[in-house]
């Protein structure tokens, strides 16, 4: 899957998993921070994103410190998925 295609798919999944019903994939920029500013997600959302990575791409994040590096924005999530996906 091409990187752009993966990012589009990931944005749709983020919207679906986090129930961001008011958002469309094009509303999320690739380098927009997921937490704090930007999308303004919180700690429960981070758990939902970890579940997303596990269920959709077979990636298990065991160490929360890794999560902080991976769940920065769509770019970092997509990079990690490309590198470690098992499905």
């Amino acid at each position, binding site marked *: 899957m091409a990187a752009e295609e993966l990012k589009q798919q990931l944005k749709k999944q983020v919207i679906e*998993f*986090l*129930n*961001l*019903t*008011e958002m469309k994939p094009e509303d999320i920029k690739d380098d927009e921070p997921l937490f704090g500013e930007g999308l*303004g997600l*919180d700690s*429960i959302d981070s*758990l*939902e994103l*970890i*579940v997303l990575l*596990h*269920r959709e791409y077979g990636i*298990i994040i065991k160490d929360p410190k890794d999560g902080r590096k991976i769940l920065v924005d769509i770019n970092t999530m997509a990079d990690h998925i490309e590198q470690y996906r098992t499905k």
Partner: protein
Amino acid sequence: MFYIHQTCCISPQQTYTDPDINMLVESAGNKLTVIEPSCEGIPMKVLRRMNKGVRIGVGAALPLIQGLQELSGIIIGTANGGMEESILFLNQIIEYNEGILMPGNFVQSTANAAASQLSLLSHNKGYNMTHVHRGTAFENAVIDAAMMLKENRRHSYLLGAVDEISGYNYKFEQIEGWYKKEVVSNKHLYKSDSPGTIPGEGAVMFLVNNVKHNALAKLAAITTIHSENAMTVKHIMEDFLTNHVLAEGNIDLLLTGEDGDNRFEHFYLQCEALMDSNVTVARFKHMSGTYPTASAFALWLACRALTSQTLPGHMIKKQGSQTGYKNILIYNHDKGKQHSLMQVTITADGVHGKTL
């Protein structure tokens, strides 16, 4: 027991803003689902995690408690809580072999999600209790509020009930025979003469305390009965009427939860037979549908009847000879097993000029 000062109701009828219960909203697909208002006042970040039950519970409560300084606690009755989310969460446990699970579904699946969300949104750190006694969940919340107010005479509580139709639960209860197999409109519910009823849902909230002045109504007495035996229910009803209700004067309106299920109609007929011939008999389940905490909707209607002194014609089963309402008895049961009686009376201040 206590006085009711403000109410708010989200139901399948137009009860939220500019209530108009004269026009009966018709059921669709053998269900009566709530008319959901827009959830202004709830941050989008919070709203997106709310399931329907929590959404309507919070939606009905917020207008009563926003900006209120004197709220002592929140007491909610719900039989099923966020049932839809509960089942989603349970299915995940099986589907993912007890592995990594979505926390959002878990957070919303607890029965006390509405009460706790209200506490967070209103910054209320007082008493916070959710009663889950199935068909008498609301009644137990009422009893809790009455006991709290007996011990704390100056307190005010948010008292309410919420239950939703969950897709999964609807299927289970349909298989168990609780809902009608044939297509029946709520407009013809009482003529259906067949087993089962039509499901409903709703959220009703009340602000209650011990202050008589400016109250909409007084909740004067309550009892719950757990029995499938008609004679047992009858004896407890007779005792309740003798010891509590008639002490406040004669009943002028009996509001029953008759729901078109011909297997359990005899309970309502039995209660009607205990009333004097001049008592008006009215029904409400064609408006709310049947759900475990529907008696809260009946209490909302009783408050409305006491303040407006009228009821729409579609509610009346038998018009009594007395005019006006001062002393209302609500009788409801859930699945023929859990029964409740509530007596609601007029307050001197509550007749004129109050709207719900």
